[in-house]
């Protein structure tokens, strides 16, 4: 007979107490406590899912048996949209993929188009691109550190990292006029040169930055809560990490030495001296350590690039592809024609198919472009690191607690704009 009234429920011998007020003595005739698997929905509106990710968790107590990510809440069909846009019109769309690090997306995209066209970039352009990309990596990693610590429960780190992020965003604003969706890279170079003021401020920032990293470290490295919530959490072995296609700091945290900047040096990465930090255990703590070291290496790369920064143009001189400067358009017939053709019709790359991978802060960001010789790509595929990383989510979450789910989101450095595209 089922209990209905409150009195009946209280007298029910089979009653299961969530918080047993007085633990009852275990006797032979006490019925067994009920146990069942619980299905818990997490997201899409959850502050720790870094956007709109939904996960369905199958639980046994607090332990995760299976985690099924449900994506697509931010799917905008960027790949389909790109098939109807000319190559230049796509650049602002790439800003909105990984909106934390839009410069890296711009960079990855323009590199793919340049590979398709077979265009090379002037040396100063390459150095400026490297500086900007590494500034963006620092911004991305600072954002990741602040939010991961916030998810785990340390609020101060968030304020401190955003202080430095702010300084870099101010520099971006000075360089290109925008702080988040920057649209700064151009096919054949970049939009604007670094001014002496920017270089001065950047040098000042780099001088102070190593001491700031030590400040963050001081908050976390000996913090017992931080250690117990990151050490041995979400461990992935090197073989599994490679098989799941992980890249970037998540892969290097497992000790696999794969960084596209070293494996296939592009821009100015081959001309400066820097190291690839590698983890050993493949847990959340190692990935944290790798990202902290990467910020230091990024600062190293930027200072060397600033030292070596050569004089010269920042845009390549291919009039069929690069829009001519405004003064020339007003004076020169040929430039006016090029300007008109580029902005009404776009340029026509050769027929062919390229894949170009770039080391974005989150991992390997690849653009596959299939060109049929028309001014619009026939097919454009974005290989987004966040999407591929989420494929390993179930594997990495099994056996851990519900609270660790938040840590795992954080350790991937997920951005749903890039994941859902």
């Amino acid at each position, binding site marked *: 007979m089922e209990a209905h009234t409150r009195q009946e429920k209280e007298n029910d011998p089979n009653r299961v107490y969530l918080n047993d007020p007085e633990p009852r003595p275990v006797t032979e005739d006490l019925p067994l406590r009920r146990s069942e698997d619980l299905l818990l929905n997490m997201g899409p509106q959850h502050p720790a899912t870094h956007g709109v990710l939904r996960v369905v968790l199958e639980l046994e107590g607090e332990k995760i048996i299976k985690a099924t990510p449900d994506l697509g809440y931010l799917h905008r069909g960027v790949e389909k949209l790109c098939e109807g846009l000319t190559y230049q019109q796509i650049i602002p769309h790439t800003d909105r993929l990984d909106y934390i690090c839009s410069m890296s997306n711009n960079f990855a995209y323009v590199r793919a188009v340049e590979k398709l066209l077979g265009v090379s970039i002037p040396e100063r352009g390459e150095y400026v691109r490297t500086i900007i990309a590494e500034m963006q990596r620092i911004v991305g990693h600072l954002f990741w550190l602040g939010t991961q610590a916030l998810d785990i429960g340390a609020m101060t780190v968030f304020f401190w990292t955003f202080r430095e992020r702010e300084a870099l965003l101010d520099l971006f604003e000075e360089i290109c006029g925008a702080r988040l969706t920057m649209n700064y890279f151009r096919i054949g170079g970049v939009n604007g040169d670094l001014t002496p003021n920017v270089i001065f401020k950047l040098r000042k920032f780099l001088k102070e930055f190593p001491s700031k990293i030590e400040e963050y470290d001081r908050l976390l490295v000996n913090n017992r809560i931080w250690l117990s919530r990151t050490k041995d959490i979400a461990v992935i072995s090197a073989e599994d990490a490679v*098989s799941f296609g992980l890249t970037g700091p998540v892969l290097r945290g497992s000790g696999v030495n794969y960084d596209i900047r070293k494996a296939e040096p592009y821009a100015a990465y081959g001309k400066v001296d820097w190291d690839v930090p590698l983890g050993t255990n493949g847990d959340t703590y190692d990935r944290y350590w790798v990202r902290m070291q990467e910020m230091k290496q990024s600062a190293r790369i930027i200072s060397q690039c600033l030292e070596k920064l050569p004089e010269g143009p920042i845009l390549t001189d291919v009039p069929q592809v690069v829009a001519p400067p405004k003064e020339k358009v007003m004076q020169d017939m040929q430039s006016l024609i090029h300007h008109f053709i580029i902005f009404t019709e776009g340029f026509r790359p050769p027929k062919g198919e390229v894949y170009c991978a770039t080391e974005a802060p989150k991992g390997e960001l690849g653009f596959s472009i299939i060109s049929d010789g028309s001014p619009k790509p026939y097919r454009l595929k974005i290989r987004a690191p966040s999407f591929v990383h989420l494929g390993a989510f179930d594997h990495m979450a099994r056996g851990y607690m519900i609270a660790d789910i938040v840590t795992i989101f954080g350790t991937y450095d997920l951005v749903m704009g890039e994941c859902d*595209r």
Partner: protein
Amino acid sequence: MTQDIAQKIQEKFPADFVGMNEFRNDWTVVVKPDRIVEIALFLRDDSELVFDHLSDVYSVDYPDRSVSGGERFEVVYQLNSIPKRHRLRLKAGLREDACEIDSVYPVWKSAGFLEREVYDLMGIRFRNHPDLRRIFLPEDFDGHPLRKEYPVEGKGWRNTFEFLPTEEPQT
């Protein structure tokens, strides 16, 4: 050097080899779809190739080829070797009336999500995939939006609006 890889595949699988080409130093090998898992296993386990990292899986729609009786879809595997530092693009053509191919999930686990995306947006089915469901779009979504015949603005409620012209204005 990557040319040797392409020739190696040709020697190992002469019956399945369709062609190879190079563009901007990217090598592409086109194979028949039937023995894709065996080819994938060979590419992963051969001591000189070691394609241990599947970077990307995507598909391309060529409706024009279908008109002339050819293979409408292409499934593209973008492979990468971390120890050997080389890349290869592996392609398999699929006819519209038989757009099914074996899943390479047993070879590379990253194929799990990547193939689901191809299924969702292009409608290519992967045999033996452990969890072949739509990944971005809702389960009851009609059609596969990356196919060329699908309108960019989408289909749905909007098409029933009476105030929107259904045909292009005549000039």
